[in-house]
């Protein structure tokens, strides 16, 4: 798996535009972020409903801290 996986996930969880692009073309977006083929293939199978729920939950947490 790619060393930059957590960085990419952190961006996916916090960046609405990136997340929308990723959900449209997960493999291409993961590769464009520098992740290797194996990681990008694994991310194609991401839990899409969970990604949206987690991103919403993290956004609420960040808003509460501001």
């Amino acid at each position, binding site marked *: 798996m790619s*060393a930059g996986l957590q960085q990419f996930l952190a*961006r996916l969880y*916090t960046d609405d535009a990136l997340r929308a692009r990723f959900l449209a073309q997960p493999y291409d977006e993961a590769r464009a972020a520098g992740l290797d083929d194996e990681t990008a293939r694994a991310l194609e199978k991401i839990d899409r*409903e969970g990604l949206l729920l*987690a991103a919403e*939950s993290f956004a609420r947490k960040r808003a509460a*801290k501001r």
Partner: protein
Amino acid sequence: MRAGLGWRTELGASILAHLDEIDVVEVLAEEFLDANASELRALRFLSMQVPIVIHGTSLGLASTEGVDRRRLDAFARLLDALGRPIWSEHLAFVRAGDVEIGHLAAPPRNDETLDALAHNLDEVRRVIGSLPLVENVATLIDPPCSSYDEAEWLNAVLRATGANLLLDLHNLYANARNFGFDAERCVAAIPRERIGMIHMAGGRVLPGGRILDDHLHAVPEPLYELLGVVADEESIVIIERDGAYPPFGELLDEVRRARAACQPVCSNS
């Protein structure tokens, strides 16, 4: 068994008024990492009234980028000031690159994360002088790029790091409901002697059916059954409540029920 509550400002007066029923209080580290002398004195005074344990949420032990040294030093200062009580932190990453996620993100459950976790905990032990209890986290997303299921992951962490577990039963219960595994079987797969503390909390069901671990609701009934499976007379159980506070008597009832859930196990051991 010792049972108690998470210290929250809103609950402070009620906790202090009911110390005859509260064996232990859990204090959030982040509220005191920048504490001044008088705030630390107040915390030490609290620790003279009731045993305290310290709970962290910001170290990011599962980060593949390492643990922030300044934050770690602040934890060390706090724990030293309190006489090095039991402390805990989550099996999560909370930031990566220049991005703060805002909360605890479940890491990919794979060997890369395991290596990073072991490295980070070595660093923690060097700086602080002790290992935290490491807490399983709740997650709304099935952690991407994982090769371990929840039980395998927790056992692999315990083997690889030497740290003991803060078993959060609601996190486990929520994940079991969210991703379709058997919570009781998962709990049974964890070596009892490696469980150093237990958390109980409540959450809510989101549209679509997943459970959000929000600590704003009562402890659900199945958690007491799980507690009966896992607790013994040495257990420390903390009820976590972060808002939407009910009358304090309801929280005390949860503390009492946690003790009662342990009774059949304790009397047989």
